């Protein structure tokens, strides 16, 4: 097949991502022509930009329906390859994008609407690109397409000191992590002599010590995106310093991109003996430390944002175990993606509820701020309750199946080794610790509070966002088959 044909086909299959990218770029360009500011009618501007972004997303979804099912394994040679992993990444993007745009509708910074939505759409376009990449270059391109708009978004309000601090921290540490990533990529290229991921994966077992180091460095670089220990340090500071919606963005999009990139890099075709002797121990160790650090530090928090940041770290630990199960081919191929989907519903639902409480005039920075919230804002509190129960992993919510599948995957029948069992036990312990601090938040919501002024401001977009998340969380428990 000639190169032109490959490019044409790739473009057809990547059309949703391309649509998002073009839409984002156009929205960003709009800032040149479009005067925004306090003098204008801010509500109609918010509506305009949100509707434009939503339209772009809908167009992308429609394109993904109309391009037809990609013929798998046909474009192995190009920069992109389309398989079930790529499709899953795309669906996760649509799910997250839909909820995030709804959340942004009334919370986006008024003075920078076009830049904000432009950045968001570009970030969304990055994940399908990462998910479909079949080459070190396209992988790196996709990841940078995600991180550069993130820097912009975090620092979008220039007068906000804590936001600026968060943006700077994120930028510096991200650059630091990218160094490792690039170093690893160059070693990989040096060892294998190709940038094609399939070629590289075929070479994993050829037994070079340098290969181990290269893989390790690449995985470390990706650990930053997924907030695995020891790259988690930025998370609490950034979550604390930015807005609720951006915290939601930060908790979801980079994580999806990081995990999708890890799956791309390691491959799901089964690992040889020597490759798995490097990759699996690193992943397991990283998962163990990440879970423990996330949960232990979260228990000590009174600051809700930091608590959620550490909870996001802890979930990375569980997700790493799901990744191990996926890589070892012990579980369903969708174990990681369904966890991410459930995670999207519960975490974004949680942030949407907090966003609504803040938009209605309440405060949600400290756990104590939520005291008696049930009597002040019942609807949002019910959303929070469902999300928290799902985060704990109790039945009647999607979080239960997500955790269950990880457990089942990590102690699969053909894995009698003690390390896997130990990981399962450790995860169970961590789940108990996590239940402790989530429960603390949950009980605070229902405590009687002296100040019972109801919060009455209604934000339809945020309400829809968390209603969708809550309904999804519950429906996925009863119909787990659609959680893919």
């Amino acid at each position, binding site marked *: 097949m000639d190169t032109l044909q490959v490019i044409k086909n790739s473009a057809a299959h990547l059309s949703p991502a391309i649509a998002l990218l073009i839409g984002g770029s156009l929205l960003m360009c709009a800032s040149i022509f479009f005067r925004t500011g306090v003098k204008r009618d801010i509500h109609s501007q918010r509506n305009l930009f949100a509707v434009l972004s939503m339209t772009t997303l809908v167009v992308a979804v429609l394109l993904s329906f109309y391009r037809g099912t990609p013929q798998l394994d046909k474009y192995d040679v190009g920069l992109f390859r389309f398989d079930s992993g790529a499709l899953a990444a795309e669906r996760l993007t649509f799910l997250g994008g839909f909820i995030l745009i709804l959340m942004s509708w009334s919370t986006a910074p008024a003075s920078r609407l076009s830049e904000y939505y432009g950045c968001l759409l570009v970030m969304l376009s990055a994940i399908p690109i990462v998910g479909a990449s079949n080459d070190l270059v396209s992988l790196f391109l996709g990841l940078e397409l995600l991180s550069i708009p993130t820097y912009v978004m975090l620092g979008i309000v220039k007068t906000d000191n804590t936001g600026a601090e968060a943006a700077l921290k994120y930028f510096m540490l991200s650059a630091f992590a990218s160094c*490792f990533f690039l170093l690893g990529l160059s070693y990989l290229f040096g060892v294998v002599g190709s940038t094609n991921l399939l070629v590289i994966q075929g070479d994993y077992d050829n037994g070079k010590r340098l290969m181990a180091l290269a893989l390790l460095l690449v995985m470390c670089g990706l650990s930053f995106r997924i907030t695995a220990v020891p790259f988690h340090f930025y998370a609490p500071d950034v979550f604390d310093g930015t807005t609720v919606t951006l915290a939601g963005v930060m908790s979801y999009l980079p994580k999806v991109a990081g995990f999708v990139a890890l799956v791309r890099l390691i491959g799901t075709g089964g690992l040889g003996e*020597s490759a798995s002797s490097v990759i699996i121990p690193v992943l397991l160790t990283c998962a163990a430390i990440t879970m423990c650090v996330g949960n*232990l530090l979260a228990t*000590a928090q009174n600051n809700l944002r930091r608590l959620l940041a550490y909870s996001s770290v802890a979930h990375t630990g569980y997700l790493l175990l799901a990744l191990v199960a996926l890589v070892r081919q012990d579980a369903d191929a969708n174990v990681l993606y369904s966890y991410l989907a459930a995670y999207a519903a519960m975490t974004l639902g949680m942030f949407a509820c907090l966003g609504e409480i803040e938009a209605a005039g309440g405060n949600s920075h400290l756990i104590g701020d939520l005291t008696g919230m049930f009597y002040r804002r*019942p609807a949002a509190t019910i959303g929070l309750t469902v999300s928290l129960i799902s985060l704990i992993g109790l039945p009647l919510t999607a979080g239960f199946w997500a955790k269950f599948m990880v457990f089942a995957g990590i102690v699969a029948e053909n894995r009698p080794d003690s390390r896997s069992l130990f990981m399962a036990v450790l995860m169970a312990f961590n789940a108990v610790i996590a239940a402790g601090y989530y429960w603390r938040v949950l009980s605070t919501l229902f405590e009687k509070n002296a100040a019972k002024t109801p919060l009455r401001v209604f934000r339809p977009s945020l309400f829809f966002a968390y209603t969708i998340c809550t309904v999804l969380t519950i429906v996925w428990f009863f*119909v787990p088959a659609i959680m893919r």
Partner: protein
Amino acid sequence: MPNSDLFAWLVPIAPLAGCIACVILSFQGDRKFAHVPAILSLVISAVCAIALLAMGAPGSEGVTYVQGYRYLQIGGVTLDISLRLDSLCLTLLAVVTSISAMIAIYSKDYMHGNRGYARYFAVFCGFVFSMTMLVLSHNLLMLYAFWEGVGTCSYLLIGFWFQRPSAAKAATKAFLVNRVADTAFLLGILLLSFAVGQTDVGQGVSWFARLDFQNIFDSAPVIAEKQSALLTCICMLLMIGAIGKSAQFPFHVWLPDAMEGPTPVSALIHAATMVTAGVYLMARLSPMMALTPSVLTTVAWLGGITSLIAAVMALYQDDLKRVLAYSTVSQLGYLFMALGAGAVKDLMTVAVVAAMFHLVTHAFFKALLFLSAGNVMHAMGDVIDMRQFGGLKRVLPKTHLLFGIGAAALAGLPPLSGFFSKDGVLGVIADASHDTMIGKQFMALLAIGFITAFLTAIYTSKAYFKTFHGTEKIPEAAGHHAHEATGIMLAPMAVLAIGAIGVGILLGPTHWILDYITQTPRMEHAEHHEPLWLLVLSALIAAAGCFVGYVLSKREPSTNPVSLAHRIADFGRNRLYIDWLYGVAIVQPLEWCANLLGWFDTNIIAGMTGWVANLPRLIGMVGQRVQTGRIPAYSYLTAAGIAAVAIWIVTRTNW
């Protein structure tokens, strides 16, 4: 079969939707229109159930599976949610849905103005959802799940007025007694799954699919041949589950107390539908139960004992609702007696048909009686003690008529429905008494059946005459506005009354129900001859009982404390001291143990767990020191971490 899938799914899904709608309404405070979604959904459900019945949904093979969806697939275990339609389950389904729709309509006015109006309808619909799913289950484990579902709804409705200590206590009692029985049920299910796995049928089938009724029936003969003791044990455990839900001796204690709930609930759950779930379970599993005659004989004896003692207790109750409650227990005893007759070879199907027939008629007339009692209670200002009112014929003329119909049906007066179905039960026991092996036992049970029938007629007519005839007496609590119930309350009762009159003669002598239920696979070979002397005798007994009841209602109770009659009355009023015995023999020792363990828990365990629970927080606080907020520190820590892992990996790898 056109659209039978859709109808079959609508039957449970409509009440579920109604339940969700009412839950949402209950969040908005007590909305006055919560009954709209409830009644609408229940009527849809009833219409669909009757349509299924009318269109012959089971098809030519006698059973149809309606595919739902695959709930879950973990490894080799798949959980399929689908429905099983056959004539046995459709019979019960039609009764459950139509009676629940009637009672929901009745509740609209009865519950009017109560706190928790929406909550009431939400749980009501939830109950109907669980019950229909229970009936439609294709799998024993799925049945168990909804078995617990109806138990939960029953608990919530008994304790509907939870501010009342007696209601809260009654709810707890019902819950705990059922828990004991359900534990046995669960053990039975697990053992059965194990046993089926041992047979050829269960080879390579996951534990969930093994509990499919089809697989159970396929493997039961093999188990009976190879491990008959195991099968007896399984059936015994399952039987305990059934008698717990159906309030049979020794689990009968919870049902009379359950009358603390609203009266429509007593009518629906604790008379017509939920308590018959045990009977349905036995009928459903009858192809397996038929292989264990010893269990069925036990069932028959338990049913006999229950029916007799409950009738005796009913005789001495002053509370109208409690009379009806004990009579329910007693009639359920009849059903179990009938099922027990299946112990005799080739009689199982006839026994099931007799039990199902009486179940259907009983559902109609007992629901009618409870709703009439509800009318009385409504008019008398929540007074239900028969000593405080009397002669209500003039005040409540329509209720008087409706109660009269229900009472005559319960007493077994021809040609009302109770007469035919009770006769069917006695007939099958009479058939069983011809058996050479265990015929003697059934001879005794037949005698018990006749005595119970006599007692039933006595207490029914006594309650009827005491309430509606004699000198008019209205309690203080009723005020001056003792009035007949509204039209919306009376209309569904009229429908039930038509059922109470007509269902028996429609289904029994025509053999319709016999022919219909025997279409169920594995329930063929039904031959049944009803001797004429039985019909005549039971009609005479009913008439005699009614006369005695009339005489008793005129007489003042003897006040002489040493007289024998007074002693017996005392015995009956105190529920034969069975509740007291349970309190002394079971509850109190358990409480002592609980107190001991409670002390241990608060003083020793709590202290230890407190320490363990605080440990993560302490570690976290120490760990927080690392989170300085300074980028250089973060970078150093990150780099150090990577270096450590790199050294570890590169040195251990043998590439």
